[in-house]
């Protein structure tokens, strides 16, 4: 763990789990591997709003082959609200016959990604793979094939580099843990 930078004195932030340097190194490593594996193919990067945007922005610039980027948004589970997961914003581009790589900031339960994989598979891409910066596999309910993985992370509530709590802290350039009392309280407290 890296000491928390003094310029961010929010007491709810505990400590830095992944520094800017560590993230940058992982992004470069993943970008090189993806560029090598997809050379000569029709690569489409797809990310899930909003958390994956920060990682996608860095990753796509670390992949030095032609590619497109696209975005999806799906509804989030809310207690006491009936219904099922839905696509709130669909892709702008067709993916049939293309090599689709889903770019995630973090995968924990795998439930939302599992749904997304089922949806996108029906659109008959040439291939469908997953790249995640962080893998919280201790919480995995649904096992999923993850081809590219930046870090395995512990089961802590993480914020920064796209990850949020109630919309906050996405803009941190590093990934940090939250003080335990923050997630022990009711959501939104």
């Amino acid at each position, binding site marked *: 763990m890296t000491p928390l930078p003094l310029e961010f004195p929010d007491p709810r932030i505990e400590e830095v789990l992944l520094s800017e340097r560590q993230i940058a190194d992982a992004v470069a490593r993943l970008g090189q591997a993806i560029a090598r594996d997809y050379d000569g193919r029709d690569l489409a990067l797809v990310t899930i709003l909003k958390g994956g945007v920060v990682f996608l922005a860095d990753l796509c610039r670390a992949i030095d082959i032609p590619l497109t980027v696209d975005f999806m948004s799906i509804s*989030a589970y809310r207690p006491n609200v009936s219904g099922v997961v839905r696509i709130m914003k669909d892709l702008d581009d067709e993916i049939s016959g293309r090599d689709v790589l889903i770019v995630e900031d973090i995968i924990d339960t795998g439930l939302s990604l599992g749904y997304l994989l089922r949806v996108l598979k029906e659109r008959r891409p040439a291939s469908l793979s997953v790249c995640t910066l962080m893998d919280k596999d201790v919480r995995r*309910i649904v*096992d999923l094939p993850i081809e590219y993985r930046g870090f395995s992370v512990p089961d802590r509530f993480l914020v920064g580099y796209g990850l949020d709590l109630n919309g906050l802290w996405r803009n941190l350039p590093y990934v940090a843990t939250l003080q335990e009392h923050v997630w022990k309280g*009711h*959501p939104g407290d």
Partner: protein
Amino acid sequence: MSDEDPDSIAEDLPVSDRVARTVFVHPSERAAAQILDFYRINWEYEPTSFPLEWDAEGRVLAYFTPDFYLPDYDLYIELTTMNQNLVTKKNRKVRRLKELYPEVSIKIFYQKDFRKLLFRFGVPVRPREHAEGGGFEAHNEGGGSAE
């Protein structure tokens, strides 16, 4: 829900009905079923009891019944929301299950992990007193505990 088309509303109904029809032993199991339903993951509640111990005559002395079975993933899930001393007993059962039925896939979610999981989905929880069985209670439904 008035802004949804009729087909999507109809799609919702069996999901809610299914959770409503199921009698869960623990409210956290109901919370888990609702989350699985939301993500359109098929589940069965306590569909199988695995014999773990037999007497000399072959009569079953002890069973283990995992909470959920996810047929699309051929996976059993056990939620442990009890105190640590009871978790030890359940761990022993899961280990025995894996010894006797190595082909069975099972994942166990401990109280702390499941509490974090519920928090992740915005489900408030409260600690349960020892007299209530320990663990915690998920507050995501109108009805009370089935216990």
